[in-house]
């Protein structure tokens, strides 16, 4: 990287950070370069500086910023990625809430849900655990900053790549194959809804929750330290006391937040929100 590259990337990185709270400083600049390259080609632009000016000044900038956001957070996801997290919800979160769930549904949020694989995986896991038969229901919400991906999530229609971690039996059980695509069956789509939110904004989840469990996996890695802390505060604000925050395997709150108690479950570290007494021992209400 020469000084001119440094200059151009800083302009773009600052813009992205201000707009989305995402950080591409240091070695992550290569990731940024790879992700904006298709946009430069599509717009017939020749340099990062061209693209920066386009995003700052061009009449089409708002639409392009939406596309950029999709490109930047375009993490490949698929059904049952890190499957143990769904086991945690079934084996630990739900049993701990048994009394409360007699009178209300389990509430979960999939933050940065992309095209819906994660919230639907959770819905399938809950359904398959036979909770309905025991009178337990759930409400799962998924949010993402990209409306195209949310639109795709609402169709619940997927290509084979999204099902790579599903066995042939699971594919047959959960999906209908239509014209080479896989459509999630209605019974798993019920009680899953989606909304648009930019988690980098402090009020992104205002009026939402409280949730018993929040899944936010492989999203915080994109934030700078301030954005990370801000987003964790946003998620903490909508989590019920004692509620669970599930992060990706490379994300950690240890030494970063006093609001959560790290807990080792099913071979993974999860985080429980402290209650008023400072412990996470109480059940979410």
């Amino acid at each position, binding site marked *: 990287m020469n*000084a001119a590259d*440094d*200059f151009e990337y*800083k*302009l773009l990185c600052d813009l992205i950070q201000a707009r989305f709270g995402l950080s591409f400083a240091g070695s992550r600049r290569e990731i940024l370069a790879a992700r904006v390259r298709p946009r430069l080609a*599509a*717009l*017939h632009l020749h340099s990062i500086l*061209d693209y920066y*000016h*386009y995003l*700052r*000044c*061009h*009449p089409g900038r708002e639409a392009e910023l939406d596309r950029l956001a999709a490109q930047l957070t375009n993490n*490949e996801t*698929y059904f049952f*990625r*890190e499957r143990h997290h769904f086991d945690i919800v079934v084996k630990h979160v739900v049993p701990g809430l048994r009394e409360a769930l007699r009178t209300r549904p389990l509430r979960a949020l999939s933050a940065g849900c992309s095209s819906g694989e994660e919230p639907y995986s959770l819905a399938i896991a809950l359904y398959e655990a036979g909770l309905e038969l025991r009178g337990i229901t759930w409400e799962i919400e998924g949010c993402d900053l990209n409306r195209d991906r949310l639109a795709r999530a609402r169709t619940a229609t997927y290509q084979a790549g999204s099902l790579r*971690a599903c066995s042939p039996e699971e594919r047959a059980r959960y999906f209908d194959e239509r014209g080479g695509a896989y459509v999630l069956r209605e019974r798993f789509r019920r009680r899953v809804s989606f909304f648009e939110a930019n988690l980098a904004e402090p009020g992104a989840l205002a009026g939402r929750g409280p949730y018993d469990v929040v899944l936010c996996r492989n999203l915080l890695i994109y934030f700078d*330290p*301030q954005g990370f802390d801000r987003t964790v505060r946003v998620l903490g604000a909508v989590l019920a006391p004692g509620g669970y925050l599930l992060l990706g395997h490379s994300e950690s709150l240890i030494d970063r937040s006093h609001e959560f108690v790290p807990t080792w479950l099913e071979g993974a570290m999860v985080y429980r929100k402290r209650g008023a007494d400072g412990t996470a021992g109480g059940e979410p209400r």
Partner: protein
Amino acid sequence: MSSSSASAADRLAALGAVTGPEREAAILAALEDEAPLVRDLAIRLASRYVEPQVLGALVADGENAARRNGALAALERQGPYAVPYLLELLRSPDAELVMFALQVLARIGEPTSTAGIRPLLRHPDPNVAQAAIETLGRLRTADAVPALLELLDGELWLQLAAVTALGEIGDPAAVRPLLALVPGSVLAEPAVRALQRIAAPESLEPLLRLLSEIAEPGLRQAVLEAVAVVLDFHSDPTPVATGFAGELERAGTLEGLTAYLSEILRRAEAEAECARELGSPGPADEPALALDAAAQAAAAVALTARLRGLYPLVLRRVGDPDAPWAEPLWRRHGAVPREELAALLSHPEPAVRRGILLAGGFDPADLHALLVRLNDGEPAVRAAACRALGVTGDGRAAKVLVDRLQHGTPEEREEAATALGRLPPEALAPLRPCLAADAREPVREAALEAVRLAGAAAFEREVLDAVRAPSDAVRLAALRAVATLSGTRAEVALLRALGDRDDRIQAEALELLAARGGDRIGTTLIALLSAEDSLRFRVIRALGRLRTREAAPKLEALYPEVPLHEQVEIVRAVAAIGAPGAVGFLRGALASPAAEVRRVAAIGLADLATADDLATLAGLAQDDDWALRNEAARGLGRLGLPEGRAALLTLVRDLEPVVARTARIALSKLGDGSGTAAA
């Protein structure tokens, strides 16, 4: 600036706002703030506003580690500004202070400081001597090599530091002394790492010998990685590697080396598969990365030494997104005698068949063997066979490739189009039906791509017809093919496409016209400036790219009337054209209320400024906008005048690291040897 009485955010804001005589005290206090973000800001401010002597006093104060660390970080950020003071510190009787000064000098990386450091190699305090060795290594100055080689007979920790430093410096004079340390010395592994960094061709044969002899796994893997780097830099490694393999074969010891390399290649592939299963893109952690590097090294040795039994293990990784190294490595070092090619092409594993087809270098004599693979049961192998047929450049392959283009999978179609593009244009007659208006859209689009690649002259009529096709994709592909044609008809087709109903096609046509150049294009584009539509933005950019001098006055006249995004492009275009009067226009644009206009004007000024613009650049050096300060630094460096030095010595301590770096580069260009002089 208490750490406890206000939140970190409040302290951060307060520190950023403090000015006047209290600033220095506030900054120094904040160096020991409990919040990392506040400390980081304090370091940046200290670098900008606190003199090296004051920071040096904090370094000397052994009682306050937090302030000392902050001061060291600030001195490092000051870079060339702090170097003279740091060199003075090297004469201090306080050994600890000397070591801190060396540490900062190493991080600053100013090569002119070597002379001041070299006497410390024989410092009575071995810790200081060690720090001096490490610093010389970081500074990479070759004139330190003889002194460092002498230290290889000294105390063990000084030897270790010297070995590492010799590797960092990279002078081949160190190869023999370093090889003498392998394998029987405690310094064997550091010596191998140093040899890897030096990567001298003369170390290849001895390192290969060590690779076959060493049994200890850690050291052997280090040697393998060193061999791979040496191979990479070697201009002709094959004779050395094959000669050595032949020697092992005659001695009956080749099998041991082959088994070792095979094991590494297999483990790395299994690891990559496992990571894919878990959803990680590429090697996920340090051990996986190390294994991937070892596999790459093992493949390099296997190919250069012609260890043919290992070829399938390498070819399996070609086309594997987790092994992007495999294909280029095969292209560089892989070689298969024709009599052995058939076995690889019909290998029972599809991945091996595909690998050799993707990476192999083929010629017309291979045609028959390749044609067989077009009937392979695996679509990916058939697609790879299309690519290989293109590599032969043999026109006889055209007919079968056209068949794949018409009837193959999308992947086969794409590869067939690229392959057809590599054949002689006169062989492409079978492609004609695919260009006809009644051809299926993806087939016609692919055929146009093939024609574009091969040269469209023989298909001018078909291509010009396709420019009027109803399908956007076909029109776009046709336009790209048209651009390869010479003559008026092609130019007219491109100009007409500027009015296409699809914006993307308009933009593409303009790009193609600009890339085509020519006398008339400038005139045409200037005429298009009067049209107030979305294309004008691109027309302005194209005029800048073409550096059409006649356009400059028109652009300047248009500037006040157009929206912001076009103003930005006009300023950029005027700067790129660089016609007389451009600097005056840019100076005017610097007064724009729009930050983006000011920024592009500053960029232009940095490119075009003359000595007359020193005052303007000095003014920009004090602007609140870091981008303007950065361009001031760049412009001052470009001018290389001593009068710019004072401003650059301030900019080199800029709060914004990008600006500081630009200023540092600029200072090194002043040419008066004053790059490191603070006073």
